[in-house]
């Protein structure tokens, strides 16, 4: 298992409203796929004290619906969507909406590639649009002005 990288990595692209994340797991793609498309979700869509997914149901076939609910920072949330592509153990594509929040669903794509000793899982969460533009800085937005340089694309003429 020496080829497996230790850490998960997630990056955001502000301009495209896109998150790309990846992790290498020392288990076969079939095993990883099962964790993505079953109630096992409630064991890993979890970050103690931040969010905790408690329920998940899904009809894992193209056109089937899924739904998840839990608590994030003390407030209940419900996520829901539809499976667009189900191709075990290689690919799973589903729409994603926060109930009562999102104007349009984002699209979540999981890609699983076999690698030496396990699986590379890549998550692409695309089309994320902010629910509203805040008039000013609320307490939740901790991003400092210093980060603007990273946020703006570096297109120089």
């Amino acid at each position, binding site marked *: 298992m020496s080829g497996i990288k230790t850490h998960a990595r997630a990056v955001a692209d502000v301009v495209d409203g896109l998150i790309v994340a990846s992790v290498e797991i020392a*288990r076969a793609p079939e095993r990883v796929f099962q964790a993505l498309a079953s109630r096992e979700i409630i064991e890993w869509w979890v970050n103690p004290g931040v969010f905790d997914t408690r329920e998940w149901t899904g009809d894992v076939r193209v056109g089937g619906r899924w739904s998840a609910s839990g608590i994030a920072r003390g407030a209940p949330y419900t996520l829901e969507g539809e499976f667009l592509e189900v191709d075990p153990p290689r690919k799973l594509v589903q729409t994603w909406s926060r109930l009562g929040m999102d104007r349009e669903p984002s699209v979540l794509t999981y890609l699983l590639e076999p690698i030496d000793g396990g699986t590379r899982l890549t998550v692409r969460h695309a089309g994320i649009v902010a629910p509203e533009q805040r008039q000013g800085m609320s307490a939740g937005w901790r991003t400092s002005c210093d980060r603007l340089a990273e946020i*703006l694309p570096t*297109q120089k003429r």
Partner: protein
Amino acid sequence: MSRIRAKTDAFRAIADPTRRAILDRLRAGPANAGTLAADFQSSRPAVSKHLKVLREARLVTDTKVGRERVYAVNPVPLQSVAGWLEGYRSFWQASLTRLKRNLEAK
């Protein structure tokens, strides 16, 4: 949750490469429309149109100096976009870390 009008949406405003370049130029310092038009070798009406979109999304502010309007970048809407996305980024960072740990422990 209030619905927003498309024209105030920072995501849409920065979807255009010329507008991203204008913002990038304004990061170096405030400028008027004439200077920007010269910098971008485009017509002043074209630049004014882009500035209007950026102003409506509150990505730039304008101040009247004599007969000119001077434009400056306003980072706040982009920060809210970045802040919103950061929630998703940290969600996946934490979830994938946990998935790896759970599966490899079994």
